[in-house]
Structures are given as structure tokens and as C-alpha cells.
């Protein structure tokens, strides 16, 4: 990866650089070629102009010279003599003076008198008449013409004495010497060419020797007129030449001309060294960029690969090693950020791990943590043949604390509870908060008495009053225990059974309960009952029974106690003893109480309509007393049915009042303010103090039936009943005795001045219609006999 990246980076840099170099070079190459071409063209064109003007100047010079000669008196005189030898000699003499290559003299009619070459030898001039016609017309005639197969620049002027007496022609040959001179001046290759109708012919050239083919093709090129325009490229020998056809001025129909050529090599030679230098620079800078690219890629990739290594390490969860990139640049910053990041990740991972395994409120291990530990412990126990115990503890009626005092207090209670439990445990034991007010303890390796002591210590720690600010809370807790391997082989099983044991402890008002085998099924039954109970009210499965209460003073029945019955579709009639605790446990009790109150008050109204002014007692649960809304709900129903509140007696158990004495007292007072009567139910079973009882706004006591049932046989119970009645009367309370099943007991109670008797002797609880009938009859028949009940019932 490192190598690849580095290589790629280097290659990329190099490629980019090479690309730039190449395009620069290419641009340069193209530009110089174009420049060379255009320069060659310019050169050729300017050369052509120089050539033309040189030729013109030569022509003018020739003309001047010839005119000078014709105005020479001696020359004219010699010509006028008509003496041929004289004329020959004077022509040679004058031609020699100006180095003319040809001298021709003719009379006015065009007869050649004499024609000589540069050496004074006679020369045949065949086209003289034609030339002369132009000269006669223009008076003087500067031309380029072929004479005797050789090209000449020729001037023809008249000889005047002072009128025309003859024509003199003088010319310079277009020879190799001239071509070389012109080449020296124009820097162009000069080739004189004569074009004829049957093709061009080669005359003189400064070009290096050409082979026959090249010569022929150059001539054929020249013989077409296309070269007279823009220069064309033509190859001669090893070199290319830009070639231009330059017709010579004065030449008849442009038949004589010069091929002007400029070698491409010459045009490019200026750029050759520049090109070599550019290539050298490109190579050097390519090497430099290769070195730079390598250095740069190493400089960049080495820290990057270190970072990559660090990332892999972090990925594996190793946060201890810092990335070692000690630099001041962006990569250094990146490495610093990496180090900070991995420290942050480590910290947050710890937090998350802690949160995953701990309860945020109490900082105790959470459910997941416990389960993990429990699984581990079971494995260990299984391997070593040890035992372990799972203890589950919750705070009774913790929901009420949250509801009445707020969650802040509830949280503080939980924190304090957690702290205490933790303190009461050995180091090796594990305490976890399982959720809500449930705590779970895992105790390993202790059995029997040792384990019991540990459990006892927990219970004691849990039940100490908790002080929160100025408040002191007395909490009841229930503890259930399940032991491995007796009560379960898996964590799930142990926890569930500890939970059942805890429930049983709660039900049986014990602080601690070890799981009893077989409680599982019971527990499941109860759970299903709870579910069914929710639907019982809307489904009309609940029904009120009414048990008459006999006024021992008047021997009349003027009150009944309403008792709720549940007619379960499958399980049949379920007694309140069974489902009311479930209702309390599951919170359905409020709904239940509400329904009962509504039914009772509605019934009171119904009876009033039948002239039965019967008072009705109903039972409140301990949890009802923690509901501050109860008085308002009660008032609402009373008003709705216009029932006299004093007909209603609300019965509260002694323990219910004692549990949360302060708040319960407040609710009771508000209920009394509603105008209803209040009674203490099951009196004698709890631990209420008399002083406490005295403060309660109650009107009557109901002696628990456990005393009454046996009072006829057990004198102790009779004493208790009697003294209780006296005590109550002394406190201004009415007394109701429950469980009266025989006349002897009734007589005894009468003897003790008990106010009201209730029991099967008088009547069993009756459904509404029966009760109504029973009551209607009882109004007319005072209680007399022991068969009264049967009489009334059967009637």
C-alpha cells in the first residue's frame, strides 16, 4: 500500500511533468517549424525582391552605360562612317569598357551591321528584328533574352547624330558568375531557367550538383506556373528547398526567369541549437522532478503509513500507543488529532462499558452485568460442585413513594438502599440493581447458617428507617431466595424463582422467603388471574354480595357489609382473599375500589327507593389510602346518587392505617369530612398502638373474627373481646363483632354490650336480589331465634 501510493504519486508527478515538457517541446517544435517556414518564405520573398531590384539596377546601369556610349561623339562618328572594320573595333572597344558580354549594332532598318561577344568574336543574333521592333516602339528597350542559346540582359538604344542613325544593343550574360554574385547578395540559391513551349531548360545554377532526375523534376516544376505564387518545398540532393519562380522583367512572356531557393536546413539551423538546449533542459528537469517526486512522496507517505498503522491499532482496540509523527505541518496536526482521538475513544469506550454494565442511578452493576456474572458463577459452581444463592429484594409499595413524594425522593431512596445493601454484603458478593426497586444479590460458596446470616443482614439493613432531609421513612422489603443447584440450573430459572419467593414473602408478610418447590405453577396461575382481573370489571364478572349486620340493641338489621365476588369464567367463584392481594400487587385495586364504591352507592340509592334505609360498609385497601383523589371520587358518587353519606361505612384494616401513618391519617380525615363513617377492620391482628388508634377519625372497631369464632370455647378470647369492647366504648367507638355463628356467642356479645354482630348466624353474604328480599322481610321481623336466618332466607 505504501509502495503503491508512493509509486503512484511519483509516477503521477513524473507523468505530469513529462507531459508538460513534451507539450512545451512540441509547441516549441511546431512554432519553430512554422516560424522557420514563414521565415523562409519571408526570406525567399525578400530575396526575390532584392534579386529583382538587383537585376533592375543592373539593367539601369547597363542602360546608362549604353546611352553614354551612344552619345559619345567619336563612337557616333565611327558609326556614321559605315566602315565595317572601324565599327567592329569601336564596338569591341566600347563593349570592353563596360564589360558587356554582347554588342550588336544595326541600321535603322534592322540589318545587323556587327554583333560581337565579349571576346570580340562574331555572334549570330537571330531574334534581332523582333527585339528591334520593341525598341523602336519604346525608343529604348531593356530586356532579358536568349541570344545564340544563352541568356542575356540586353539594352537596345538608338544611336543619334542627332537624329537616329543606328541601333545599338549591349548586354550582360546571365552566367554562373552573376548567379554566384546574386547568391552572395540574396543568400538564395539562384538558377536561371529558360521556359519554352516544349519544356524548360537548365541554364546556370548555384545549386550543388543535382542528379538527372532531380534536375528534370525541378525543371518540370518550373515549367508549370504554379511556383510563381507561394514558395513550394522542393528536394534537391540531401536537402529541402523552399522554391520560388521569379520571372525576369522584360523577358518575353516571362520565358526567362530565375528559380530562387532557400534551404530548409538553413531556415531551421537557427533553431537547432535552441532545440538541443531545450531537450537538455527537459532531461535535466525531468531528473530533478524525479528526485523531487521521490523525496516528496517519501516525505508524505511515510507519516501517512504510520497513521494507517495507528488506525489499524485503534481498530483492534489498542489505544495506548501514540502515533509517532513529530512534524510541524498538517500531517503533524493530523497525528496530534489522531492521538487526541484515540484517547477520547478510550475514555468514551470506558464510559460506555461502564454504562453497559452499571446502573446510572446507583452505580451498581445492572441486570445485564448480573446475568453475565451469574452465568459465570453457575459455570464455576457446576465445575467445582459449589452452591450459590440468588437473592431478590424489593421495597414494598415503592410506587407509592414515587407517586406521593416524587421521583427525586424515590431516586434518593434507591441510592440509599443500594448503599446500605452493598455495605451489608461481603466483598465477594455481588449486588445489582435489577430495575425499578428490585435489587439482586449473588452469594457464592456459602451454605446453611452462613447464608442465612447473610440474608438476615441484608434484611436488617433494608428495614432501617431512611432519613431524607427532615423525613424518616420506614420501609418494608421482601426478600426471595433461590439456591443453585436445588432451585434451578440456569440464571433465568434462579432469577425467576427468587422472584416468586420474593412475591411469596410479600404475600405472607414475611421479610424473607426461600423458594418453595412447586410455587412456579401457583405463580403462573396468579399471573394469569391478574390478566383476567383486568378484564373482569368491563366483562361484568364481578358482583357484590351483601352480609347483614345485626344491631344488638334494636334487634334489627340496619346495615350490611358489601363483599366483592369474582365469578371467573373458567375457575368459577374466586374469593376476595385470593384476588384482592393480586389486585393490590398489580395496581388494579384502584379500579376495583372505584367500581365497588360506585356499586355500593348506586345500591344505597336503589334501596332508598324501596324504603330500605340500609347503611352499607365497604372495604378499602391499604393502597386506597395512599390515593389522594379518593375523597373527591367518593363525593362525586354520593352527589350523583343523592345518598346520605352517613349511610356509608368505609372499613380500613389496622395494618393499612399503620403502614404510612401520616399520609393515611390525612386521607382518613378528608374521608370523614365527606360525612361517611370509618371503621377499623380486623382489629386485633395488627400492632396498632392505642395512642395511634386514638388519633384516627374512626367511628367503629370490627373485632377480627379469629377472636369471635372461638370465644364461646376459649375464655382468653372472650376476655380479649370483652375488654376490646369496653376499651372501644371508652374511646367512644361502636364495636362490630365478625364471625358470629352460634347463638351462644351472640348472647355473650349481647352480654358484653357489643353493638353490632355479623356472621353466618345472622346471614351469609347474599347476592343483591336476595339481600333486598331478605332486608325487606327483616324489617318486619325482629331477630329472635336461632333459625332466623334460614327463615328469612328460605322465605
Amino acid at each position: 500500500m505504501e509502495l503503491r501510493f508512493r509509486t503512484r504519486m511519483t509516477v503521477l508527478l513524473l507523468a505530469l511533468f513529462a507531459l508538460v515538457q513534451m507539450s512545451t517541446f512540441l509547441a516549441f517544435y511546431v512554432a519553430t517549424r512554422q516560424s522557420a517556414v514563414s521565415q523562409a518564405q519571408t526570406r525567399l520573398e525578400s530575396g526575390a525582391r532584392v534579386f529583382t531590384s538587383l537585376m533592375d539596377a543592373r539593367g539601369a546601369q547597363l542602360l546608362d552605360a549604353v546611352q553614354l556610349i551612344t552619345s559619345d561623339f567619336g563612337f557616333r562618328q565611327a558609326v556614321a562612317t559605315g566602315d565595317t572594320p572601324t565599327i567592329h573595333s569601336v564596338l569591341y572597344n566600347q563593349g570592353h569598357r563596360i564589360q558587356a558580354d554582347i554588342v550588336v549594332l544595326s541600321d535603322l532598318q534592322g540589318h545587323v551591321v556587327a554583333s560581337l561577344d565579349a571576346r570580340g568574336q562574331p555572334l549570330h543574333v537571330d531574334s534581332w528584328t523582333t527585339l528591334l521592333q520593341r525598341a523602336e516602339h519604346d525608343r529604348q528597350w531593356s530586356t532579358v533574352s536568349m541570344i545564340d542559346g544563352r541568356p542575356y540582359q540586353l539594352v537596345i538604344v538608338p544611336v543619334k547624330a542627332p537624329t537616329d542613325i543606328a541601333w545599338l544593343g549591349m548586354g550582360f550574360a546571365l552566367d554562373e558568375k552573376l548567379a554566384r554574385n546574386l547568391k552572395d547578395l540574396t543568400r538564395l540559391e539562384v538558377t536561371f531557367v529558360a521556359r519554352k513551349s516544349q519544356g524548360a531548360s537548365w541554364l546556370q545554377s548555384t545549386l550543388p550538383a543535382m542528379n538527372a532526375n532531380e534536375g528534370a523534376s525541378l525543371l518540370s516544376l518550373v515549367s508549370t506556373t504554379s511556383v510563381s505564387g507561394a514558395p513550394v518545398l522542393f528536394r534537391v540532393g540531401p536537402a529541402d528547398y523552399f522554391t520560388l519562380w521569379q520571372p525576369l522583367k522584360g523577358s518575353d512572356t516571362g520565358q526567362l526567369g530565375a528559380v530562387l531557393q532557400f534551404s530548409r536546413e538553413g531556415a531551421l539551423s537557427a533553431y537547432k541549437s535552441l532545440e538541443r538546449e531545450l531537450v537538455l533542459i527537459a532531461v535535466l528537469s525531468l531528473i530533478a522532478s524525479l528526485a523531487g517526486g521521490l523525496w516528496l512522496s517519501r516525505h508524505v507517505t511515510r507519516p501517512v503509513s504510520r497513521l494507517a498503522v495507528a488506525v489499524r491499532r485503534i481498530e483492534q482496540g489498542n489505544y495506548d500507543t501514540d502515533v509517532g509523527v513529530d512534524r510541524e505541518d498538517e500531517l503533524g496536526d493530523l497525528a496530534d488529532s489522531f492521538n487526541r482521538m484515540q484517547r477520547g475513544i478510550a475514555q468514551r469506550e470506558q464510559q460506555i462499558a461502564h454504562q453497559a454494565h452499571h446502573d446510572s442511578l446507583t452505580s451498581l452493576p445492572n441486570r445485564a452485568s448480573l446475568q453475565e456474572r451469574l452465568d459465570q458463577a453457575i459455570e464455576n459452581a457446576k465445575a467445582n460442585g459449589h452452591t450459590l444463592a440468588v437473592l431478590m429484594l424489593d421495597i414494598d409499595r415503592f410506587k407509592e413513594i414515587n407517586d406521593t413524594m416524587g421521583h427525586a425522593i424515590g431516586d434518593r431512596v434507591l441510592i440509599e438502599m443500594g448503599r446500605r445493601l452493598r455495605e451489608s454484603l461481603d466483598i465477594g458478593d455481588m449486588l445489582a440493581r435489577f430495575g425499578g426497586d428490585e435489587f439482586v444479590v449473588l452469594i457464592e460458596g456459602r451454605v446453611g447458617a452462613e447464608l442465612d446470616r447473610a440474608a438476615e443482614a441484608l434484611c436488617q439493613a433494608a428495614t432501617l428507617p431512611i432519613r431524607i432531609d427532615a423525613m424518616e421513612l420506614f420501609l418494608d422489603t421482601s426478600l426471595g431466595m433461590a439456591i443453585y443447584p436445588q432451585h434451578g440450573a440456569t440464571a433465568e430459572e434462579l432469577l425467576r424463582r427468587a422472584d416468586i419467593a420474593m412475591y411469596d414473602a410479600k404475600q405472607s408478610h414475611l421479610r424473607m422467603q426461600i423458594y418453595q418447590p412447586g410455587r412456579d405453577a401457583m405463580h403462573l396461575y396468579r399471573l394469569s388471574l391478574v390478566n383476567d382481573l383486568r378484564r373482569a370489571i368491563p366483562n361484568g364478572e364481578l358482583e357484590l354480595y351483601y352480609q347483614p349486620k345485626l344491631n344488638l340493641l334494636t334487634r334489627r338489621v340496619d346495615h350490611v357489609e358489601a363483599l366483592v365476588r369474582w365469578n371467573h369464567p373458567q375457575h368459577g367463584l374466586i374469593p376476595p382473599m385470593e384476588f384482592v392481594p393480586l389486585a393490590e400487587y398489580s395496581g388494579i385495586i384502584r379500579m376495583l375500589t372505584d367500581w365497588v364504591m360506585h356499586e355500593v352507592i348506586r345500591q344505597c340509592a336503589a334501596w332508598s327507593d324501596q324504603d330500605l334505609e340500609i347503611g352499607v360498609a365497604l372495604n378499602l385497601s391499604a393502597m386506597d389510602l395512599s390515593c389522594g383523589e379518593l375523597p373527591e371520587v367518593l363525593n362525586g358518587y354520593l352527589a350523583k346518587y343523592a345518598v346520605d353519606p352517613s349511610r356509608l361505612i368505609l372499613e380500613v384494616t389496622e395494618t393499612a392505617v399503620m403502614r404510612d401513618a401520616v399520609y393515611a391519617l390525612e386521607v382518613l380525615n378528608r374521608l370523614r369530612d365527606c360525612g361517611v363513617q370509618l371503621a377499623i377492620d380486623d382489629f386485633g391482628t395488627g400492632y396498632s398502638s392505642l395512642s395511634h388508634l386514638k388519633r384516627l377519625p374512626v367511628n367503629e372497631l370490627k373485632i377480627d373474627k379469629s377472636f369471635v369464632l372461638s370465644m364461646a370455647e376459649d375464655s382468653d378470647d372472650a376476655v380479649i373481646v370483652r375488654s376490646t369492647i369496653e376499651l372501644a366504648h371508652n374511646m367512644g367507638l361502636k364495636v362490630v363483632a365478625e364471625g358470629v355463628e352460634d347463638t351462644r356467642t351472640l348472647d355473650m356479645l349481647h352480654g358484653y354490650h357489643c353493638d353490632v354482630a355479623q356472621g353466618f348466624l345472622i346471614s351469609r353474604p347474599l347476592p343483591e336480589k336476595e339481600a333486598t328480599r331478605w332486608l325487606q322481610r327483616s324489617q318486619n321481623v325482629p331477630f329472635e331465634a336461632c333459625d332466623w336466618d334460614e327463615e328469612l332466607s328460605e322465605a
Partner: protein
Amino acid sequence: MAARSVGRRLLIVGCIFFLAAAAQAAEIRVRVDDGAGAPVADAVLSLNRVGGTPTTPRKASATMDQHDLRFAPFVLPVQAGTTVTFPNSDNVRHQVYSFSASKRFQLSLYTGNHASTVLFDQPGIVTLGCNIHDWMVGYVVVLDTPYFAKTAADGSASIANLPAGEYVVHLWHPRIEDATSQVVEQHLVVAGAPLQRDFHLHLRAPDQSNMPPAGLEMGLGHRMRPHGT
């Protein structure tokens, strides 16, 4: 050359009276134009008598002056045998020459004080030049007849006292085609009556004008006449 058919010959048919002709002399008047109506000056009209004995050269003289860097006159017709004097009226020297076949001569540089004379005894056209002034040209037209005249600026010329007889009429001009005189009328019969002729000459463009270049100061040509002598 095409110019051979120059001119339209107008043949005036008149009565020929030999007697009268022998006894009387007549005058001929001509007008010469260039065919386009422009008068031709300096044309030389000459009449040669047909059948008559050639006239002997007559001792006569004429003057060809050089004045204002020009030959004056431009054209000088003389009968053969005439001696022409070449005075110099300019204050510069002239070197007059002729390469013409009928009379070649050369007068070395001279001023007016030493006027030379040249005898022109052969008929022909003698073209005069000045070796140091190329533009100068003059013509001495040497004729073998006493009957000649030169047209004036209006193109007219006349010859009086022509004896009756038959004549060949020639016309010459410096710019005439072929440079030789033309016969414009082959049979001119002169009786007592005056004759009138119109001739047309086709001329070349002037190549030599006998005019000094325009830039030369005119006063240059005048010779200062010495005071008192």
C-alpha cells in the same frame, strides 16, 4: 511602309496652254496639314521641272544661326551650291556637325565671332547636330531646283514666278515617314494662272525637337554683344 499612300492627290485638271505657259510665269500657293487639319510648319515644298535641263548650281548664301541653344532656322532649304554661314548668337560655344551622307562636316567649338561657312553642293538632307548640346537639331535641305519654299506656322507656302511647264511636286518634313522627300504631285502643269494646292502629310511623333530642356535658363543662350565694336 504603309505611309507610301500618303496624301490624296488632288488632280486639278486645267487647260494646258504650252504657248501661254512658255510665255508666262505663275504662282503656286500650298497649304500643308497633317491630315487632321493641323497646319504643318517647316515643310519644304520643291518643284522639279519635268524635261527641263538641270539647273546649274547657283552661287548663293544662306545663314543657319545658333540662337537660344537652338538651330535657327530649324529647317533651311537651299539650292545646291549654296554656302551656308553658321554664326553663333549664343554666348556659349557650339560644335556643329553633320554625319549626313550628302554633306559630312564638323565645325570645331566656336563662338559667333568666328562664323564658319560650309558649301552645300550635293542635293540631300543634311542633319545638323551640336556635339555638346544633344537636343539641338537642324536641317539643311539641299535641293537641285530653284523652286522651293518652306511652310510657315500656318502651313502655307508659295512659290512665285514659276515658268510655265510641267513639274514634279515634292514635300519634305523632318518628321516625314522614311525621312526622304515625297512626291505629292507627279504632273503639276503650270500655265499662267496661279495654282492652289492642299497637301496632307503624315508625320511621326517628334523625337528631336531642337528645343533646349525646359530647366535651362533662357538667357543662357544669348551672346552678349560687345559694346562699341
